[in-house]
């Protein structure tokens, strides 16, 4: 198999490429040493050029693109964090203001309540005092009227006794006697 293919290769190579320069003479092409210098040279040229273009042009460009993107993402995240912090600060300030307003409102309400309570208390006390004074006066008046009435009763009782004694005995007692007797009877 191998020998026939070698022969085959030689003939085909020669018929197809007349100016082959004996490249196909080694039989199996990859082991044909005659082609080595050319392959090594062209590999050196092409790979060297490739390495140069990759390291100087292509890779810096792709690396730059990736770095730009990384920077952009990082800065966007930082910006988002900053905005979030601002938002949180605003919320905290709002809540503090709200709490203060609430405290102030409750203070005002408490003060108002206290003021109203003291005012009411004062009014009530004044009214009570007034009423007490009126009550005392009224009681005094009642006592006066009672005393006067009692004095009148004594007089009337004395006169009545005088009249009764006179009509019974025919002789009127002295005023002194009757009044003594009335007093003794009434007490």
């Amino acid at each position, binding site marked *: 198999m191998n020998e026939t*293919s070698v022969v*085959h*290769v030689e003939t*085909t*190579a020669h018929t*197809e*490429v007349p*100016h*082959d*320069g004996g*490249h*196909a003479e080694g039989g*199996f*092409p*990859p*082991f*044909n040493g*005659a*082609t*080595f*210098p*050319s*392959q*090594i*040279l*062209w*590999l*050196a040229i*092409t*790979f060297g*050029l*490739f*390495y140069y*273009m*990759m*390291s100087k*042009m*292509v*890779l810096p*460009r*792709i*690396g*730059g*693109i*990736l770095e*730009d*993107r990384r920077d*952009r993402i990082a800065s966007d995240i930082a910006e988002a964090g900053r905005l979030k912090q601002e938002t949180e600060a605003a919320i905290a300030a709002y809540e503090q203001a709200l709490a203060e307003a609430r405290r102030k409102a409750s203070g005002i309400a408490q003060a108002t309540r206290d003021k109203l309570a003291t005012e009411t208390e004062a009014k009530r006390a004044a009214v009570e005092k007034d009423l007490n004074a009126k009550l005392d006066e009224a009681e005094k008046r009642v006592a006066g009227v009672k005393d006067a009435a009692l004095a009148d009763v004594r007089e009337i009782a004395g006169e009545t006794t005088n009249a009764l004694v006179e009509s019974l005995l025919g002789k009127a007692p002295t005023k002194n006697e009757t009044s003594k007797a009335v007093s003794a009877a009434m007490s």
Partner: protein
Amino acid sequence: MSNDPIHQFHIVNLFPVEIGGVDFSFTNSSLFMVATVAVTTVFLMMATSGRGLVPGRWQSVAEMCYEFVANMLRSSTGTDGMRFFPFVFSIFMFVLIGNLFGMFPYFFTITSHIIVTFALAMIVIMTVVIYGVMRNGLRFLNVFVPADVPPLLLILVTPIEIISFLSRPVSLSVRLFANMLAGHITLKVFAGFVVSLGSLGPLGVAGAVLPLAMAIALTALELLVAFLQAYVFAVLTCMYLNEALHPSH
């Protein structure tokens, strides 16, 4: 001729160049090296010309290549290995695109020639040795002396390490070369079966369906191998570079 599976590996002289009696002709191999470099460079330049903050389709592909190789290198050598990034990227893309170009019918596969893969492997090994000695001096010899091995065993282990180090350029180049060569021969053989069976009449055409299916499956496999071998080549390059950076392992 059409059925000869070796025919595709022939070097065809396109433009004769001879310097000092040595043949440096521009051949089909040279043409495909130039094509590989030109297509890859032009593609990467065009794809990134927009410098989009939000990448388009082509720019995504270019960025994917970049980050794939960057992650590969960073994970095996750490950040101080990133100085070799252009080198590893060039190796990976050159081998990958060279392999993939070989998947087109009638195209020449530059990596199917042992001298090309060997030259690439030697570039890697020479970079490792020269940089390793420049950076570490004699401490670079620590690569042959594994840490945490009893001194008695070192008598045995060190020669093995030396042999394995010396065999690296061979294994690195032969792996890529043999994979490309064997894959393309197998593909060509099965494709040849389709043609020869097809010329045998209706029964032959019916029978040719089997090798055709095989050829299709092999094409898919070869695409995988084309990528995988470029990846393996690049990963091993990274591992060898890591030893140059950190010789005591």
